[in-house]
Protein backbone atom coordinates (compact mmCIF):
# COMPACT_ATOMS: atom_id res chain seq x y z
CA UNK A 1 0.00 0.00 0.00
CA UNK A 2 1.27 3.47 -0.86
CA UNK A 3 0.99 5.90 2.01
CA UNK A 4 1.89 9.50 2.68
CA UNK A 5 3.75 10.24 5.90
CA UNK A 6 4.12 13.69 7.39
CA UNK A 7 6.46 14.64 10.20
CA UNK A 8 6.43 18.05 11.86
CA UNK A 9 8.50 19.10 14.86
CA UNK A 10 10.68 21.80 16.33
CA UNK A 11 13.79 21.64 14.11
CA UNK A 12 16.80 19.81 15.55
CA UNK A 13 19.59 17.46 14.49
CA UNK A 14 18.74 13.86 13.54
CA UNK A 15 14.98 13.89 12.87
CA UNK A 16 15.28 12.43 9.37
CA UNK A 17 17.83 9.85 10.51
CA UNK A 18 15.61 8.73 13.38
CA UNK A 19 12.41 8.41 11.34
CA UNK A 20 14.10 6.78 8.34
CA UNK A 21 15.95 4.20 10.41
CA UNK A 22 12.69 3.20 12.09
CA UNK A 23 11.10 2.78 8.64
CA UNK A 24 14.11 0.71 7.53
CA UNK A 25 13.86 -1.50 10.61
CA UNK A 26 10.24 -2.21 9.75
CA UNK A 27 11.01 -2.87 6.08
CA UNK A 28 9.04 0.11 4.78
CA UNK A 29 10.41 1.41 1.47
CA UNK A 30 10.72 5.16 0.94
CA UNK A 31 9.68 6.15 -2.60
CA UNK A 32 10.01 9.91 -2.29
CA UNK A 33 10.94 12.40 0.39
CA UNK A 34 10.83 16.15 0.67
CA UNK A 35 11.76 18.31 3.59
CA UNK A 36 11.77 21.97 4.50
CA UNK A 37 11.88 24.22 7.56
CA UNK A 38 8.93 26.61 7.73
CA UNK A 39 9.24 29.34 10.38
CA UNK A 40 11.48 27.14 12.49
CA UNK A 41 9.17 24.13 12.17
CA UNK A 42 10.70 21.09 10.56
CA UNK A 43 8.28 19.69 8.00
CA UNK A 44 8.86 16.48 6.08
CA UNK A 45 6.60 14.51 3.77
CA UNK A 46 7.40 11.01 2.55
CA UNK A 47 5.77 8.71 0.05
CA UNK A 48 6.27 5.17 1.33
CA UNK A 49 5.38 1.66 0.23
CA UNK A 50 4.26 -0.55 3.13
CA UNK A 51 3.86 -3.70 1.01
CA UNK A 52 7.60 -4.41 1.37
CA UNK A 53 7.13 -4.73 5.13
CA UNK A 54 6.22 -7.88 7.04
CA UNK A 55 4.27 -5.71 9.49
CA UNK A 56 0.60 -4.72 9.05
CA UNK A 57 -0.32 -1.11 8.36
CA UNK A 58 -1.71 -0.85 11.88
CA UNK A 59 1.56 -2.06 13.43
CA UNK A 60 3.58 0.42 11.34
CA UNK A 61 1.23 3.22 12.28
CA UNK A 62 1.39 2.36 15.99
CA UNK A 63 5.19 2.15 15.94
CA UNK A 64 5.43 5.56 14.29
CA UNK A 65 2.95 7.10 16.74
CA UNK A 66 4.82 5.68 19.72
CA UNK A 67 8.14 7.00 18.42
CA UNK A 68 6.48 10.34 17.66
CA UNK A 69 5.18 10.68 21.22
CA UNK A 70 8.53 9.72 22.72
CA UNK A 71 10.53 12.19 20.65
CA UNK A 72 7.98 15.04 20.39
CA UNK A 73 7.41 14.52 16.66
CA UNK A 74 3.97 15.00 15.15
CA UNK A 75 3.72 12.03 12.77
CA UNK A 76 0.83 11.06 10.48
CA UNK A 77 0.61 8.20 8.04
CA UNK A 78 -2.33 7.94 5.67
CA UNK A 79 -3.16 6.08 2.45
CA UNK A 80 -1.92 8.12 -0.51
CA UNK A 81 -5.19 7.98 -2.50
CA UNK A 82 -6.87 10.47 -0.19
CA UNK A 83 -4.36 13.19 -1.11
CA UNK A 84 -4.59 12.48 -4.80
CA UNK A 85 -8.39 12.69 -4.66
CA UNK A 86 -8.41 15.95 -2.73
CA UNK A 87 -5.79 17.81 -4.72
CA UNK A 88 -6.07 16.49 -8.27
CA UNK A 89 -9.11 16.80 -10.52
Amino acid at each position, binding site marked *: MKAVMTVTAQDRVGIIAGVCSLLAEMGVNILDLSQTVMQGIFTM*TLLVDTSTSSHTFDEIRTALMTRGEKESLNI*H*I*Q*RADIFEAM*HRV
Partner: protein
Amino acid sequence: MLNISDIMQTVNMIDHQHLDIRTITLGISLYDCASSDVHKCARKIRDKICRKAENLVKVGCEIENEYGIPIVNKRISVTPIAEIAASCESDDYSVIGHALNDAASECGVNFIGGFSALVHKGFTESDKRLIASIPRTLAETELVCSSVNVATTKAGINMDAVAMMGRVIKETANLTADKNGLGCAKLVVFANAVEDNPFMAGAFHGAGEPECVINVGVSGPGVVWRALKDVKGESFDVVAETVKRTAFRITRMGQVVANAASERLGIPFGIVDLSLAPTPAKGDSVARILEEMGLKVCGTHGTTAALALLNDAVKKGGVMASGHVGGLSGAFIPVSEDEGMIHAVKSGALSIEKLEAMTCVCSVGLDMIAVPGDTSAETIAAIIADESAIGVINNKTTAVRVIPAPGKSVGDSVEFGGLLGNAPVMRVNNAGSDEFVARGGRIPAPIHSLRN
Protein backbone atom coordinates in the same frame (compact mmCIF):
# COMPACT_ATOMS: atom_id res chain seq x y z
CA MET B 1 5.10 13.25 -5.59
CA LEU B 2 2.35 15.44 -4.29
CA ASN B 3 3.05 19.01 -3.40
CA ILE B 4 4.26 19.41 0.21
CA SER B 5 1.87 22.31 0.87
CA ASP B 6 -1.12 20.32 -0.45
CA ILE B 7 -0.24 17.47 1.88
CA MET B 8 0.19 19.77 4.87
CA GLN B 9 -3.11 21.48 4.00
CA THR B 10 -4.97 18.17 4.27
CA VAL B 11 -3.20 17.22 7.49
CA ASN B 12 -4.06 20.61 8.99
CA MET B 13 -7.69 20.30 7.92
CA ILE B 14 -7.97 17.07 9.90
CA ASP B 15 -5.77 18.12 12.84
CA HIS B 16 -6.91 21.68 13.43
CA GLN B 17 -10.07 22.36 11.42
CA HIS B 18 -12.28 19.44 12.50
CA LEU B 19 -12.43 17.89 9.04
CA ASP B 20 -14.12 14.53 9.37
CA ILE B 21 -16.58 12.15 7.83
CA ARG B 22 -19.71 12.79 9.84
CA THR B 23 -21.34 9.47 9.11
CA ILE B 24 -21.24 6.24 7.18
CA THR B 25 -24.85 5.09 7.12
CA LEU B 26 -25.84 1.60 6.05
CA GLY B 27 -29.35 1.46 4.62
CA ILE B 28 -31.09 -1.90 5.02
CA SER B 29 -34.40 -2.96 3.47
CA LEU B 30 -36.68 -4.76 5.91
CA TYR B 31 -39.43 -5.67 3.46
CA ASP B 32 -38.75 -9.39 3.96
CA CYS B 33 -39.24 -9.14 7.73
CA ALA B 34 -43.03 -8.72 7.80
CA SER B 35 -45.07 -11.11 9.94
CA SER B 36 -48.53 -11.16 11.52
CA ASP B 37 -46.87 -11.81 14.89
CA VAL B 38 -45.21 -8.62 16.12
CA HIS B 39 -42.65 -10.55 18.18
CA LYS B 40 -41.69 -12.69 15.20
CA CYS B 41 -41.44 -9.55 13.06
CA ALA B 42 -39.20 -7.91 15.68
CA ARG B 43 -36.98 -11.00 15.81
CA LYS B 44 -36.63 -11.10 12.02
CA ILE B 45 -35.75 -7.40 11.97
CA ARG B 46 -33.12 -7.80 14.64
CA ASP B 47 -31.56 -10.84 12.96
CA LYS B 48 -31.42 -9.19 9.56
CA ILE B 49 -29.85 -5.96 10.84
CA CYS B 50 -27.25 -7.85 12.86
CA ARG B 51 -26.40 -9.97 9.83
CA LYS B 52 -26.12 -7.11 7.34
CA ALA B 53 -24.39 -4.62 9.64
CA GLU B 54 -22.07 -7.12 11.30
CA ASN B 55 -18.88 -5.56 9.88
CA LEU B 56 -19.98 -1.93 9.56
CA VAL B 57 -18.21 -0.58 12.65
CA LYS B 58 -15.11 -2.74 12.13
CA VAL B 59 -14.70 -1.57 8.53
CA GLY B 60 -15.42 2.03 9.56
CA CYS B 61 -12.60 1.89 12.11
CA GLU B 62 -10.23 0.27 9.60
CA ILE B 63 -10.84 3.07 7.10
CA GLU B 64 -10.41 5.63 9.86
CA ASN B 65 -6.96 4.22 10.70
CA GLU B 66 -5.69 3.75 7.16
CA TYR B 67 -6.88 7.06 5.78
CA GLY B 68 -6.26 9.01 8.97
CA ILE B 69 -9.71 10.60 8.83
CA PRO B 70 -12.06 10.47 11.80
CA ILE B 71 -15.41 8.85 10.98
CA VAL B 72 -17.54 10.29 13.74
CA ASN B 73 -20.62 8.11 13.38
CA LYS B 74 -21.49 4.72 12.00
CA ARG B 75 -25.24 4.41 11.61
CA ILE B 76 -28.02 2.27 10.21
CA SER B 77 -31.20 3.31 8.45
CA VAL B 78 -34.08 0.94 7.76
CA THR B 79 -37.33 0.82 5.80
CA PRO B 80 -40.05 2.90 7.52
CA ILE B 81 -41.35 0.58 10.22
CA ALA B 82 -44.98 1.58 9.56
CA GLU B 83 -44.66 -0.25 6.23
CA ILE B 84 -43.03 -3.37 7.67
CA ALA B 85 -45.31 -3.70 10.70
CA ALA B 86 -48.55 -3.18 8.74
CA SER B 87 -49.44 -6.85 8.85
CA CYS B 88 -48.69 -7.22 12.59
CA GLU B 89 -51.73 -7.91 14.73
CA SER B 90 -50.68 -5.50 17.45
CA ASP B 91 -51.31 -1.89 18.40
CA ASP B 92 -47.98 -1.45 20.11
CA TYR B 93 -44.97 -1.11 17.84
CA SER B 94 -42.56 -0.32 20.67
CA VAL B 95 -41.62 -4.02 20.60
CA ILE B 96 -40.10 -3.35 17.20
CA GLY B 97 -38.48 -0.17 18.53
CA HIS B 98 -36.73 -2.30 21.16
CA ALA B 99 -35.61 -4.78 18.49
CA LEU B 100 -34.07 -1.92 16.51
CA ASN B 101 -32.34 -0.64 19.63
CA ASP B 102 -30.97 -4.10 20.50
CA ALA B 103 -29.69 -4.60 16.95
CA ALA B 104 -28.03 -1.17 16.89
CA SER B 105 -26.38 -1.78 20.21
CA GLU B 106 -25.17 -5.25 19.17
CA CYS B 107 -23.64 -3.84 15.97
CA GLY B 108 -22.02 -1.00 17.94
CA VAL B 109 -23.52 1.81 15.83
CA ASN B 110 -24.31 5.27 17.18
CA PHE B 111 -27.93 5.51 15.98
CA ILE B 112 -30.53 3.63 13.99
CA GLY B 113 -33.17 5.53 12.00
CA GLY B 114 -36.41 4.41 10.43
CA PHE B 115 -39.01 4.22 13.18
CA SER B 116 -40.92 6.21 10.61
CA ALA B 117 -44.14 6.77 8.71
CA LEU B 118 -44.89 8.62 5.48
CA VAL B 119 -48.31 10.21 5.87
CA HIS B 120 -48.21 13.23 3.56
CA LYS B 121 -51.45 12.24 1.84
CA GLY B 122 -53.14 10.31 4.62
CA PHE B 123 -52.76 7.58 7.24
CA THR B 124 -52.84 3.82 6.93
CA GLU B 125 -53.92 2.00 10.09
CA SER B 126 -50.28 1.04 10.53
CA ASP B 127 -49.14 4.68 10.27
CA LYS B 128 -51.51 5.60 13.11
CA ARG B 129 -50.23 2.77 15.28
CA LEU B 130 -46.62 3.71 14.62
CA ILE B 131 -47.15 7.38 15.41
CA ALA B 132 -48.95 6.44 18.63
CA SER B 133 -45.95 4.27 19.57
CA ILE B 134 -43.35 7.01 19.02
CA PRO B 135 -43.33 8.67 22.49
CA ARG B 136 -42.98 5.40 24.36
CA THR B 137 -40.39 4.02 21.96
CA LEU B 138 -38.21 7.12 22.15
CA ALA B 139 -38.51 7.18 25.93
CA GLU B 140 -37.61 3.52 26.37
CA THR B 141 -34.81 3.25 23.80
CA GLU B 142 -31.52 5.04 23.42
CA LEU B 143 -30.41 4.62 19.82
CA VAL B 144 -33.68 4.63 17.87
CA CYS B 145 -34.55 7.70 15.79
CA SER B 146 -37.98 8.45 14.43
CA SER B 147 -39.31 10.58 11.60
CA VAL B 148 -42.71 11.34 10.10
CA ASN B 149 -43.22 12.90 6.68
CA VAL B 150 -46.33 15.09 6.81
CA ALA B 151 -46.12 16.99 3.52
CA THR B 152 -44.79 16.86 -0.02
CA THR B 153 -44.90 19.28 -2.93
CA LYS B 154 -46.91 16.67 -4.86
CA ALA B 155 -49.48 15.92 -2.14
CA GLY B 156 -49.73 19.11 -0.09
CA ILE B 157 -49.73 19.23 3.70
CA ASN B 158 -51.60 16.66 5.80
CA MET B 159 -52.83 19.01 8.53
CA ASP B 160 -54.29 16.12 10.58
CA ALA B 161 -50.78 14.69 10.74
CA VAL B 162 -49.34 18.10 11.59
CA ALA B 163 -51.76 18.44 14.54
CA MET B 164 -51.02 14.89 15.62
CA MET B 165 -47.25 15.48 15.58
CA GLY B 166 -47.69 18.55 17.80
CA ARG B 167 -49.24 16.27 20.40
CA VAL B 168 -46.67 13.49 19.86
CA ILE B 169 -43.78 15.92 20.40
CA LYS B 170 -45.34 17.16 23.66
CA GLU B 171 -45.94 13.63 24.89
CA THR B 172 -42.39 12.58 23.97
CA ALA B 173 -40.99 15.55 25.89
CA ASN B 174 -43.09 14.70 28.94
CA LEU B 175 -42.08 11.03 28.91
CA THR B 176 -38.40 12.06 28.79
CA ALA B 177 -38.78 15.00 31.20
CA ASP B 178 -36.01 13.60 33.43
CA LYS B 179 -33.60 14.10 30.51
CA ASN B 180 -34.83 17.57 29.50
CA GLY B 181 -37.10 16.14 26.79
CA LEU B 182 -34.23 14.33 25.06
CA GLY B 183 -36.70 12.05 23.24
CA CYS B 184 -37.65 14.98 20.99
CA ALA B 185 -34.03 15.26 19.80
CA LYS B 186 -34.56 11.86 18.17
CA LEU B 187 -37.78 12.84 16.37
CA VAL B 188 -38.04 14.78 13.09
CA VAL B 189 -41.17 15.96 11.29
CA PHE B 190 -40.47 16.33 7.56
CA ALA B 191 -41.83 17.89 4.44
CA ASN B 192 -40.42 16.36 1.24
CA ALA B 193 -38.33 13.78 3.15
CA VAL B 194 -35.62 12.11 1.07
CA GLU B 195 -35.12 8.35 0.85
CA ASP B 196 -31.31 8.33 1.09
CA ASN B 197 -30.54 10.75 3.91
CA PRO B 198 -27.56 9.48 5.94
CA PHE B 199 -28.03 12.02 8.77
CA MET B 200 -29.98 11.50 11.97
CA ALA B 201 -32.53 11.79 13.32
CA GLY B 202 -34.26 11.78 9.92
CA ALA B 203 -32.59 8.86 8.14
CA PHE B 204 -34.72 6.05 6.76
CA HIS B 205 -34.23 3.58 3.90
CA GLY B 206 -36.77 4.53 1.25
CA ALA B 207 -38.96 2.25 -0.83
CA GLY B 208 -36.97 2.94 -4.00
CA GLU B 209 -33.65 1.95 -2.42
CA PRO B 210 -31.83 -1.35 -3.02
CA GLU B 211 -31.53 -4.23 -0.52
CA CYS B 212 -28.58 -2.53 1.19
CA VAL B 213 -26.71 0.68 0.42
CA ILE B 214 -23.85 2.78 1.79
CA ASN B 215 -24.51 6.52 2.09
CA VAL B 216 -21.88 8.92 3.40
CA GLY B 217 -22.31 12.32 5.02
CA VAL B 218 -19.30 14.64 5.02
CA SER B 219 -18.67 17.55 7.33
CA GLY B 220 -16.28 20.46 7.38
CA PRO B 221 -17.67 23.84 8.51
CA GLY B 222 -14.31 24.45 10.20
CA VAL B 223 -12.44 24.04 6.92
CA VAL B 224 -14.72 26.46 5.06
CA TRP B 225 -14.45 28.96 7.92
CA ARG B 226 -10.66 28.80 7.84
CA ALA B 227 -10.57 29.17 4.05
CA LEU B 228 -12.75 32.31 4.25
CA LYS B 229 -10.38 33.85 6.79
CA ASP B 230 -7.82 34.04 3.97
CA VAL B 231 -10.11 36.15 1.74
CA LYS B 232 -11.16 38.78 4.27
CA GLY B 233 -12.67 41.88 2.61
CA GLU B 234 -12.72 40.35 -0.88
CA SER B 235 -15.88 40.41 -3.03
CA PHE B 236 -18.60 37.76 -2.88
CA ASP B 237 -17.36 36.35 -6.19
CA VAL B 238 -14.15 35.39 -4.38
CA VAL B 239 -16.08 34.12 -1.35
CA ALA B 240 -18.24 31.85 -3.53
CA GLU B 241 -15.21 30.55 -5.41
CA THR B 242 -13.36 29.83 -2.15
CA VAL B 243 -16.32 27.90 -0.70
CA LYS B 244 -16.66 25.92 -3.94
CA ARG B 245 -13.01 24.91 -3.97
CA THR B 246 -13.13 23.89 -0.32
CA ALA B 247 -16.37 21.94 -0.76
CA PHE B 248 -14.79 20.11 -3.68
CA ARG B 249 -11.94 18.86 -1.49
CA ILE B 250 -14.19 17.89 1.38
CA THR B 251 -16.51 15.96 -0.89
CA ARG B 252 -13.68 14.16 -2.69
CA MET B 253 -12.58 12.85 0.67
CA GLY B 254 -16.15 11.68 1.32
CA GLN B 255 -16.22 9.92 -2.02
CA VAL B 256 -12.93 8.10 -1.36
CA VAL B 257 -14.23 6.90 2.01
CA ALA B 258 -17.59 5.91 0.50
CA ASN B 259 -15.86 3.86 -2.21
CA ALA B 260 -13.60 2.14 0.33
CA ALA B 261 -16.54 1.31 2.62
CA SER B 262 -18.65 0.05 -0.25
CA GLU B 263 -15.85 -2.17 -1.58
CA ARG B 264 -14.87 -3.62 1.79
CA LEU B 265 -18.44 -4.32 2.88
CA GLY B 266 -19.51 -5.61 -0.55
CA ILE B 267 -22.47 -3.24 -0.45
CA PRO B 268 -23.26 -0.79 -3.28
CA PHE B 269 -22.47 2.90 -2.86
CA GLY B 270 -25.54 5.13 -2.85
CA ILE B 271 -24.74 8.80 -2.41
CA VAL B 272 -22.51 11.35 -0.75
CA ASP B 273 -24.51 13.95 1.16
CA LEU B 274 -22.83 17.34 0.79
CA SER B 275 -24.28 18.89 3.92
CA LEU B 276 -22.03 21.06 6.07
CA ALA B 277 -22.80 19.56 9.46
CA PRO B 278 -21.58 21.54 12.48
CA THR B 279 -20.72 20.29 15.96
CA PRO B 280 -20.75 22.12 19.31
CA ALA B 281 -16.91 22.24 19.17
CA LYS B 282 -15.31 25.66 18.76
CA GLY B 283 -14.24 26.23 15.16
CA ASP B 284 -16.75 23.75 13.68
CA SER B 285 -19.70 26.09 13.27
CA VAL B 286 -21.85 27.11 10.28
CA ALA B 287 -22.86 30.32 12.10
CA ARG B 288 -19.21 31.37 12.32
CA ILE B 289 -18.85 30.96 8.52
CA LEU B 290 -21.72 33.42 8.02
CA GLU B 291 -20.12 35.80 10.51
CA GLU B 292 -16.79 35.47 8.67
CA MET B 293 -18.58 36.89 5.62
CA GLY B 294 -18.95 40.13 7.56
CA LEU B 295 -21.94 39.76 9.89
CA LYS B 296 -21.43 40.88 13.46
CA VAL B 297 -23.61 38.05 14.79
CA CYS B 298 -25.43 35.27 12.95
CA GLY B 299 -29.11 36.20 12.78
CA THR B 300 -28.67 39.87 11.98
CA HIS B 301 -29.80 41.38 8.66
CA GLY B 302 -27.86 39.80 5.81
CA THR B 303 -27.77 36.33 7.37
CA THR B 304 -30.23 34.80 4.89
CA ALA B 305 -28.25 36.09 1.90
CA ALA B 306 -24.98 34.83 3.37
CA LEU B 307 -26.51 31.41 3.98
CA ALA B 308 -27.95 31.29 0.45
CA LEU B 309 -24.49 31.89 -1.01
CA LEU B 310 -22.89 29.30 1.27
CA ASN B 311 -25.51 26.65 0.53
CA ASP B 312 -25.30 27.13 -3.21
CA ALA B 313 -21.50 27.24 -3.39
CA VAL B 314 -21.19 24.06 -1.30
CA LYS B 315 -23.42 22.24 -3.79
CA LYS B 316 -21.60 23.59 -6.83
CA GLY B 317 -18.21 22.60 -5.43
CA GLY B 318 -19.37 19.25 -4.13
CA VAL B 319 -21.35 18.01 -7.08
CA MET B 320 -18.31 17.64 -9.33
CA ALA B 321 -16.39 15.77 -6.65
CA SER B 322 -18.81 12.89 -6.29
CA GLY B 323 -20.34 10.31 -8.60
CA HIS B 324 -23.73 10.52 -6.93
CA VAL B 325 -24.86 13.34 -4.72
CA GLY B 326 -28.03 12.97 -2.68
CA GLY B 327 -29.54 13.05 0.77
CA LEU B 328 -30.16 16.54 2.09
CA SER B 329 -27.02 18.23 0.69
CA GLY B 330 -27.03 21.73 2.11
CA ALA B 331 -25.82 23.63 5.12
CA PHE B 332 -27.33 22.47 8.41
CA ILE B 333 -28.33 25.10 10.93
CA PRO B 334 -29.14 23.21 14.12
CA VAL B 335 -29.06 25.50 17.12
CA SER B 336 -27.88 23.27 19.97
CA GLU B 337 -25.27 21.52 17.80
CA ASP B 338 -23.52 24.68 16.61
CA GLU B 339 -21.36 26.77 18.93
CA GLY B 340 -21.93 29.95 16.90
CA MET B 341 -25.70 29.47 16.75
CA ILE B 342 -25.85 29.01 20.52
CA HIS B 343 -23.87 32.22 20.96
CA ALA B 344 -26.14 34.06 18.48
CA VAL B 345 -29.30 33.00 20.34
CA LYS B 346 -27.84 33.91 23.72
CA SER B 347 -26.82 37.33 22.44
CA GLY B 348 -30.40 37.98 21.29
CA ALA B 349 -29.53 38.33 17.58
CA LEU B 350 -31.10 35.07 16.43
CA SER B 351 -34.82 34.33 16.78
CA ILE B 352 -37.05 31.47 15.62
CA GLU B 353 -38.52 33.82 13.02
CA LYS B 354 -35.07 34.49 11.55
CA LEU B 355 -34.23 30.78 11.60
CA GLU B 356 -37.46 30.16 9.70
CA ALA B 357 -36.38 32.65 7.03
CA MET B 358 -32.97 30.96 6.84
CA THR B 359 -34.61 27.59 6.19
CA CYS B 360 -36.02 29.00 2.93
CA VAL B 361 -32.53 28.95 1.44
CA CYS B 362 -30.85 25.92 2.99
CA SER B 363 -31.49 22.48 4.28
CA VAL B 364 -32.98 21.50 6.49
CA GLY B 365 -35.28 23.33 8.87
CA LEU B 366 -35.89 24.34 12.44
CA ASP B 367 -33.41 21.95 13.93
CA MET B 368 -32.55 21.20 17.55
CA ILE B 369 -34.39 24.17 18.97
CA ALA B 370 -35.50 24.15 22.59
CA VAL B 371 -38.73 26.04 23.27
CA PRO B 372 -40.43 26.70 26.63
CA GLY B 373 -41.91 23.62 28.29
CA ASP B 374 -45.37 25.18 28.41
CA THR B 375 -45.53 25.67 24.62
CA SER B 376 -48.84 24.14 23.53
CA ALA B 377 -49.17 21.20 21.13
CA GLU B 378 -51.10 23.53 18.81
CA THR B 379 -48.28 26.08 18.68
CA ILE B 380 -45.78 23.32 17.89
CA ALA B 381 -48.14 22.04 15.18
CA ALA B 382 -48.39 25.55 13.72
CA ILE B 383 -44.57 25.80 13.67
CA ILE B 384 -44.54 22.49 11.76
CA ALA B 385 -47.20 23.81 9.35
CA ASP B 386 -45.15 26.94 8.58
CA GLU B 387 -42.00 24.96 7.98
CA SER B 388 -43.86 22.43 5.82
CA ALA B 389 -45.28 25.26 3.71
CA ILE B 390 -41.75 26.53 3.04
CA GLY B 391 -40.70 23.06 1.91
CA VAL B 392 -43.80 22.38 -0.18
CA ILE B 393 -43.79 25.70 -2.00
CA ASN B 394 -40.03 25.79 -2.57
CA ASN B 395 -39.79 22.15 -3.64
CA LYS B 396 -37.22 21.33 -0.97
CA THR B 397 -36.86 19.31 2.19
CA THR B 398 -37.70 21.05 5.42
CA ALA B 399 -37.95 19.61 8.89
CA VAL B 400 -38.82 20.46 12.45
CA ARG B 401 -36.96 19.07 15.43
CA VAL B 402 -38.06 21.12 18.44
CA ILE B 403 -37.80 20.23 22.09
CA PRO B 404 -40.44 21.71 24.41
CA ALA B 405 -38.12 21.35 27.40
CA PRO B 406 -40.24 20.38 30.42
CA GLY B 407 -40.17 22.96 33.21
CA LYS B 408 -37.87 25.32 31.28
CA SER B 409 -38.55 28.83 30.09
CA VAL B 410 -36.85 31.50 27.98
CA GLY B 411 -33.40 32.25 29.41
CA ASP B 412 -32.79 28.68 30.57
CA SER B 413 -30.44 26.31 28.78
CA VAL B 414 -30.90 22.63 28.16
CA GLU B 415 -27.92 20.27 28.08
CA PHE B 416 -28.22 17.20 25.85
CA GLY B 417 -24.55 16.23 25.84
CA GLY B 418 -22.24 14.99 23.10
CA LEU B 419 -22.94 16.04 19.52
CA LEU B 420 -26.49 17.08 20.47
CA GLY B 421 -24.98 19.94 22.44
CA ASN B 422 -26.61 22.61 24.54
CA ALA B 423 -29.81 24.47 23.63
CA PRO B 424 -30.79 27.90 24.93
CA VAL B 425 -34.59 27.96 25.29
CA MET B 426 -35.99 30.23 22.57
CA ARG B 427 -39.05 32.47 22.66
CA VAL B 428 -42.09 31.41 20.62
CA ASN B 429 -45.00 33.62 19.57
CA ASN B 430 -47.63 33.15 22.27
CA ALA B 431 -50.65 34.29 20.26
CA GLY B 432 -52.65 31.07 19.81
CA SER B 433 -52.99 29.11 16.56
CA ASP B 434 -55.45 26.61 18.08
CA GLU B 435 -58.38 27.16 15.73
CA PHE B 436 -56.08 27.08 12.71
CA VAL B 437 -54.66 23.72 13.74
CA ALA B 438 -58.07 22.31 14.72
CA ARG B 439 -59.42 22.66 11.16
CA GLY B 440 -57.60 19.52 10.00
CA GLY B 441 -57.82 18.20 6.45
CA ARG B 442 -55.21 18.81 3.78
CA ILE B 443 -53.65 21.97 2.43
CA PRO B 444 -53.71 21.27 -1.33
CA ALA B 445 -50.55 20.80 -3.36
CA PRO B 446 -49.32 23.99 -5.03
CA ILE B 447 -50.00 24.64 -8.71
CA HIS B 448 -46.36 24.13 -9.65
CA SER B 449 -46.56 20.51 -8.52
CA LEU B 450 -48.53 19.81 -11.71
CA ARG B 451 -45.54 19.42 -13.98
CA ASN B 452 -46.62 16.57 -16.25
